[in-house]
């Protein structure tokens, strides 16, 4: 029994894996610009240098004037609406010096707000990761009546104002709410307490993980899980050895976005928290209170923490996007017949 050596070399239908997209892209550009440089002798020296540098314009590309104007507009917009406010937060936070900044953060109320925000995120994010995974699993792996309705419902928290999410929680669990009296009899307080804040946060941040996983799991299909099944794996083994390793980047990506929103949520939490200093104030609420009391420096100092969270999220998101792209690129040749 022998196979010809070249059957190992032949790679049907796929480009060689050694050339990643960027390099082939620039290679194409270089090849395309070659005719221009070869016709250079007819042009002057100065313009030849320009011609060698400029890439040939693609058919869909706009004239340079339009292009520069659009890019400038976009950058200006970004600077005015994102960079300027971000810089203001940092400048204002540190206006009174690092010592004052630190004092604002080590204030007992601020520390309590930090603790509460971390606690809420620590409960809401794992819950939503679990819900999201379960929802994505059922949507992509089973056929059942009302599936489209479920997918639409997953998006609901994105569609409604967070304030409404908060009000729903009050309506259900408040003193005059549907479950309020029942809960009150048992001495459980939901609204104006930590459970309410957690509930509102969970509701608002529910879609992030599910939305991230559903398209990815749909694209992956069920073949690998079927393969694992016929190879003798149990449901748990399939989940832990095949499914989770395959979706881990998408899952983590969803978790990071979910976490950012959970820590930054204002509207829904504001309605249910009751703004009790040191007890039911999260970081965003604390910033608002300080601001309302004209303690601008302290407000910005606390805000700078949230800003830091945004930066960390951004970096983590970019890193994950990069590794996800790489994972997808590696997975892609498999699925093409």
């Amino acid at each position: 029994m022998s196979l010809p050596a070249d059957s190992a070399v032949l790679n049907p239908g796929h480009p060689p894996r050694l050339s990643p997209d960027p390099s082939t892209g620039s290679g194409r550009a270089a090849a395309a610009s070659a005719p221009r440089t070869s016709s250079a002798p007819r042009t002057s020296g100065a313009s030849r240098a320009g011609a060698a540098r400029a890439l040939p314009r693609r058919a869909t590309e706009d004239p340079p004037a339009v292009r520069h104007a659009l890019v400038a507009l976009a950058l200006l917009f970004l600077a005015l609406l994102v960079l300027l406010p971000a810089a203001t937060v940092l400048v204002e936070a540190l206006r009174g010096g690092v010592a004052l900044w630190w004092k604002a953060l080590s204030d007992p109320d601020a520390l309590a707000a930090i603790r509460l925000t971390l606690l809420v995120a620590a409960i809401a994010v794992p819950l939503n990761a679990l819900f999201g995974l379960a929802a994505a699993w059922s949507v992509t792996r089973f056929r059942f009546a009302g599936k489209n309705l479920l997918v639409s419902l997953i998006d609901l928290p994105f569609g409604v104002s967070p304030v409404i999410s908060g009000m729903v929680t009050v309506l259900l669990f408040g003193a005059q709410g549907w479950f309020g009296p029942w809960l009150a009899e048992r001495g459980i307080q939901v609204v104006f307490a930590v459970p309410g804040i957690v509930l509102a946060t969970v509701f608002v941040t529910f879609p992030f993980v599910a939305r991230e996983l559903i398209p990815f799991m749909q694209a992956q299909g069920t073949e690998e899980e079927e393969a694992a099944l016929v190879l003798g794996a149990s449901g748990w083994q399939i989940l832990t050895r095949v499914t989770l390793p395959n979706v881990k980047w998408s899952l983590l990506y969803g978790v990071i976005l979910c976490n950012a929103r959970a820590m930054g949520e204002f509207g829904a939490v504001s309605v249910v928290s009751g703004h009790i200093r040191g007890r039911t104030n999260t970081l965003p609420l604390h910033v608002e209170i300080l601001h309302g009391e004209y303690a601008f420096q302290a407000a910005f100092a606390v805000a700078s923490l949230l800003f830091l969270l945004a930066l960390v999220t951004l970096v983590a998101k970019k890193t994950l996007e990069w590794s996800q792209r790489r994972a997808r690129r590696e997975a892609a040749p498999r699925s093409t017949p």
Partner: protein
Amino acid sequence: MSIEVRGIHKAFDGHPVLRDVSLTIPDGELVALLGPSGCGKTTLLRIIAGLEVPDLGEVRHGGEDVSARSARERNVGVVFQHYALFRHMTVGENVAFALRVRRRSRAETEARVDELLALVQLDGLRHRFPHQLSGGQRQRVALARALAASPRILLLDEPFGALDARVRQELRRWLRRLHDELHVTSVFVTHDQEEAFEVSDRVVLMNAGRVEQVGTPAQVFEEPASPFVMRFLGAVNVFRGHVDGGHAHVRDMTFAAPGVAGRTPAHVFVRPHELEIHRSAVPGAFAARVDRVVPLGAAVRIELCAPGHGALEVELDHRASEALALAPGDPVHLSPRRVRVFPVREGESDSLTASGL
């Protein structure tokens, strides 16, 4: 281990895919499920594997009813169409999967993986990931993985479908030799007649959710059981006529039709290589005109037009073609050397042309 399916019915969303399929595959045979796309062959394979549940009927492995057993408990090796290798695992981990989930000892697992990788000749690629392999290599990894738990049945879904022509050729021969060595009862799905004929001991021809014929490649080609089989296995010329008292009449030609009783409209099928061309009139021949001469490598296809019969084709070898020296427009005479007569069934569509599927 033999495979037996009895009275299988399966419908998806009310649309029937398999209708009363019964089939017996003896122990140690390599069988091809052959048919056009949508004929239900992949569904039948998945039912044997336990990945689909039939609406009716039962599946037996080695005489034992396994209908109630899940795919997990059937210990069947499956090679999926797109291999379905675990993309986050190396070649070695992929092959070891079935043993790891069975909690076999490390030493035993390692030894078995070594053995299997040697069998599929991928010893050096143990630490590669699937995306670093060529299509043919992935195919062999999928095969090694399917064989890891020593299944008594191996099922392959379009195993060569995603490969290019040359690799496919090599792998076909290799799979045949591998089967001769292992003697695992194997079933593979294909829509490619050549592939089915080259690799399998027996061919199961399927059409529209039914089994049309089961037999060796030579049997199904030489003695097709139905017009579908006749048309599916290569090009064919169709003449319309009728049968009367054991004889088929097509215009003024008469052929023996021993198997057909009574008086009924019939189709007379003639393979292109069983239609002879003559320059001059001979008894039993009919007139035709050459439309086109198409060289096909080793053979030459002559496309003709005959009054009353429409477009026809004849296949000749090179020598015969050179001897006749045919050119478009030449008047010739055709005589069938061998015919197959099938009565026209009620409601049978007549959309297939002489060139077949």
